[in-house]
């Protein structure tokens, strides 16, 4: 618990991290309060006239209307819910699987460990987007299918990370001590090893949420999103298929900007957390050497026997 307080205290002082958190929280806010914030209900059926289709922004529709006459802004607001749901759920799944695999393979080592790592290597070599495309196109579309597919393909990186951490923690004093006291393996893993790895996992989890959101938007853009829901990627799919020739920027740009907004926020947060948990070297040998000689004028301490020192 104490180390989380430490981490938070350091995080608070990093402008990039805090800005990222702000970006994320604003989207979370919009997602939660969508029904109150959105001027229209995207699911409601409306009567449209031909001139209502793809209209640019005006007073009644701040971001204009899409190719079906619906309000773009409302869809944008509700889209936050889909993106965040997929992001958090898929990330949680990846982190969970990855952590378990990493813990087991790192702690037990030996053949199980190696076998698991071979599996990781195998999955890493398979190109992820094509595999996701294949899965969804055969299996069918749907929110949970997307979450599952992204989650199942995203755990490998985390597994590797956790494993290498566990390998180094395994030999540390407090673990050896626990073993000498007769603690069972599971207990050691849960009580001693896991808390050490948790901060790093959290940093990676934040980054993986952004990966998941981008993956979902890519899948939706390519036509494999959940047809019952409006996600930013789906909006872009419709916009691209139907509105690109009309240069309907109000339909084309906002969903993309929204994706970038939340992703960059998560990335800045995650990057900052990663730097806190796993600090990188701040200096190296090739710095500007001009400040090295900094003699304070007249600051010669009194010393006997100056002059002829033999």
């Amino acid at each position, binding site marked *: 618990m104490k180390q989380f307080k430490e981490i938070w205290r350091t995080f608070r002082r990093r402008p990039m991290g805090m800005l990222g958190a702000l970006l994320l929280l604003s989207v979370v806010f919009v997602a939660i309060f969508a029904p109150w914030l959105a001027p229209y209900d995207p699911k409601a059926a409306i009567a449209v006239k031909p001139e209502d289709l793809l209209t640019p922004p005006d007073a009644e529709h701040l971001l204009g209307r899409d190719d079906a006459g619906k309000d773009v802004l409302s869809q944008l607001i509700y889209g936050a819910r889909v993106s965040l749901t997929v992001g958090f759920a898929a990330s949680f799944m990846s982190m969970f699987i990855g952590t378990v695999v990493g813990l087991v393979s790192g702690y037990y080592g030996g053949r199980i460990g190696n076998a698991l790592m071979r599996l990781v290597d195998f999955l890493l070599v398979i190109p992820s987007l094509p595999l996701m495309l294949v899965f969804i196109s055969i299996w069918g579309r749907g929110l949970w299918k997307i979450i599952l597919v992204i989650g199942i393909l995203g755990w490998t990186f985390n597994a590797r990370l956790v494993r290498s951490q566990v390998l180094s923690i395994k030999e540390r004093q407090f673990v050896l001590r626990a073993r000498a006291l007769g603690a069972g393996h599971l207990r050691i893993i849960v009580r001693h090893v896991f808390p050490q790895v948790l901060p790093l996992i959290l940093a990676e989890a934040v980054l993986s949420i952004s990966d998941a959101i981008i993956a979902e938007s890519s899948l939706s853009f390519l036509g494999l999103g959940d047809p019952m829901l409006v996600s930013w990627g789906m909006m872009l799919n419709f916009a691209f298929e139907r509105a690109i020739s009309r240069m309907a920027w109000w339909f084309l740009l906002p969903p993309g900007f929204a994706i970038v907004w939340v992703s960059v926020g998560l990335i800045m947060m995650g990057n900052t957390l990663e730097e806190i948990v796993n600090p990188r070297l701040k200096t190296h040998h090739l710095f500007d050497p001009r400040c090295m000689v900094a003699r304070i004028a007249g600051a010669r*301490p009194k*010393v*006997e026997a100056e002059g002829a020192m033999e």
Partner: protein
Amino acid sequence: MAILQVRNLSVNYLTDDATALRAVEDVSFSLDQGRSLGLVGESGCGKTTAMLGVLRLLPAEGRIVSGEVLYEGVDLLDLSEREMRNYRWGKIALVFQGAMNALNPVRRVGDQIAEAIMIHESVDKTAARKRVGELLDMVGITREMAGQYPHQYSGGMRQRAMIAMALACSPNILIADEPTTALDVMIQAQILDLLQNLQKELELSIILVTHDLGMVAEICDDVLVMYGGKTAEYASVDLIYNESLHPYTQRLLQAFPDVDNPTSTLASIPGYPPPLDALPPGCRFEPRCYCKKHICAAESPPLVAVKPGHYVACHPDGG
């Protein structure tokens, strides 16, 4: 003729919260051409820092806050970085502690030595390569090894290669920082022999940085004992061994096995060196000193010439 004169050199390290750690305070010595100096002290006493300061190779947090480093009369601390580069290696060369990674692992050893030559002298590649061969001969490495990579050298060979590289531009001064750490005893003896031969053949001045007083006795003419960043005692090797005055020096001498008296007990000095962020106001050795007096904790003793050529920083009896 003094080839290097260091006067009142002080080096600080800046920490994250802008406090200054006084790693080296007011160190002075003088080195004549052909004579060698032993810089002795425990780990962390500032000896490496002082040497890095001389060559202006401190890490980013290092600041030289006072002093002069006179090489043949020129104050190196006044020079620009570009002028300084001419002195590095060409006039004063430095062999680092722990040669494990001091050589670039993806470049051939011979190339790295040749690089040193070509930086300072305008010779072509073939001439440089020839010189590399001569240097390797000098340190006892077969010439063919020039085409190998550092990981193919043994620890002792790497150290000798570093020495060969240090001599590439015929410097006047060679600073050897703990040249035998992590090497086994046989190799240590080899390296020492090598340094002694080089001293004789090349009239090389060596500054030997070490915690091993035994090594110092074999190679050096003068000894500067450092403690807690300051000079404790500075005198010729004879005086240090036979008439040492500083309690720390005396303890150091007792801490090393005496080959003439193998059954005498080895003394270790209890306690730890002072932390640089919490230096005592008085003498820095006082907490561990066995003959301290009231004044020692209150006032830092000045470095005094007890007799010509023998300097000590210790409050005399009856203070």
